[in-house]
């Protein structure tokens, strides 16, 4: 009998139009709380089933990632290489500009191949020598200013004493006051300008240039900038600490001035001659 009733009820539902029929209000009430729960559960299930698909893609992604990492590494190397080229280009273009501005000077560009390893001496070795026309005494510069002086020459290499070597002395003058002195290298790698007359006005920030006196260096090569001044009443001269414009620890390309017009000192010839006659 129960079976009969149930069968009749089922048939009645079918005939009655089901959910969209007379039972529509009832199904709506029941479904209202069920929809969000069902959506949540369905979404979770999709996520679980979807992850199995992504797991399949994971290896592909890892491969992509490895490939991208390789490309990034290659690009980083390329960037470093291009930056080096850019810096070399900058240095060389500055040296070309210098050469163009000083047609009276012969320039030979060289690479720094080694440094004195003693710790006491500040020398570099460059890959140009006598075969390139370099001679002992030639000044050495880079795009920032004066570097040093050639002290020894082989056929294909030269030894250069940097201006911050303790045994280096360069005749210099201050750009603003025109006061002259001698720039001497310091143990810690800095520079000190000594023998500046007491009456000269020396200010922090003053530019220090080669004076050209003595004929060892061309005039007006940049040496550095005054960072502090020491003036004592009892002393004959004042001193100034000078920060070099050249970074001597990062020298890579330098130029050797193989010929230049030294400062004309012929005006003193008569004085020297008359003194020697006495």
């Amino acid at each position: 009998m129960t079976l009969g009733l149930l069968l009749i009820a089922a048939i009645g539902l079918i005939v009655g139009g089901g959910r969209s029929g007379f039972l529509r209000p009832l199904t709506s009430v029941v479904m209202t709380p069920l929809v969000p729960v069902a959506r949540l559960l369905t979404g979770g299930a999709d996520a679980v089933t979807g992850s199995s698909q992504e797991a399949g893609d994971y290896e592909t992604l890892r491969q992509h990632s490895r490939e991208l990492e390789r490309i990034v590494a290659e690009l980083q190397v390329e960037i470093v290489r291009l930056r080096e080229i850019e810096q070399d280009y900058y240095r060389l273009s500055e040296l070309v500009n210098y050469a163009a501005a000083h047609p009276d000077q012969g320039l030979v560009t060289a690479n720094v191949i080694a440094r004195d390893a003693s710790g006491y001496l500040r020398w570099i070795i460059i890959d140009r020598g006598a075969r390139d026309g370099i001679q002992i005494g030639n000044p050495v510069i880079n795009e920032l200013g004066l570097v040093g002086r050639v002290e020894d020459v082989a056929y294909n290499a030269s030894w250069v004493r940097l201006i911050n070597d303790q045994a280096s002395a360069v005749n210099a003058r201050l750009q603003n006051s025109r006061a002259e002195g001698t720039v001497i290298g310091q143990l810690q790698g800095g520079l000190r300008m000594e023998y500046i007359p007491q009456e000269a006005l020396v200010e922090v920030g003053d530019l220090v240039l080669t004076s050209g006196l003595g004929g060892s260096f061309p005039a007006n090569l940049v040496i550095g900038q005054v960072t502090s001044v020491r003036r004592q009443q009892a002393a004959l001269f004042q001193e100034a600490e000078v920060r070099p414009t050249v970074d001597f620890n990062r020298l890579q390309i330098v130029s050797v001035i193989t010929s230049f017009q030294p400062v004309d000192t012929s005006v003193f010839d008569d004085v020297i001659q008359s003194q020697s006659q006495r």
Partner: protein
Amino acid sequence: MSLQVGIPLFLIAMLIQATILPHLRVFGGQPDLIVVLVLAWAILDHDREGMAWAFVGGLFIDLLSGAPFGISSLILVPVAYLVGLTEARVYRTSLALPLVLTAGGALAYHAVYLLLLRFLADFPVAWTEIPGYVTVPSVIFDVILIIPVLRVLSRVYDRLHPRQVKI
């Protein structure tokens, strides 16, 4: 040490010393790789060979230096002789001895080097500042470096001079 081993070894050491090691300076001091090699060989081999290599090593040092050519050889040969007076066997039983020998040898090398720079090259030596700024850091580097260098060179030494066993 045979020429085939010694010359390339000192050549490589010279290049490293003049190109890479200047960038590792602490204050003004840096490892004296060739000096350490010479001292290590002198510790291991107390025969004349140690002095011969000291001479060669000195030439390699001066080749890429602004110092008068030959002064390093001049200093290293007697230093190697003095260091070589100790028996090689002693090193193998005592770790402190090579450290002491290296410190003494390197210190002697630096002191005489400065003296010769002063009197041969008229180099203005700031005696009050230089020891602390250059000499001491360099000697400390050398003492640290001697341990691995001795280990490597003792293997070379053992190959070249296999121990004789009486049967």
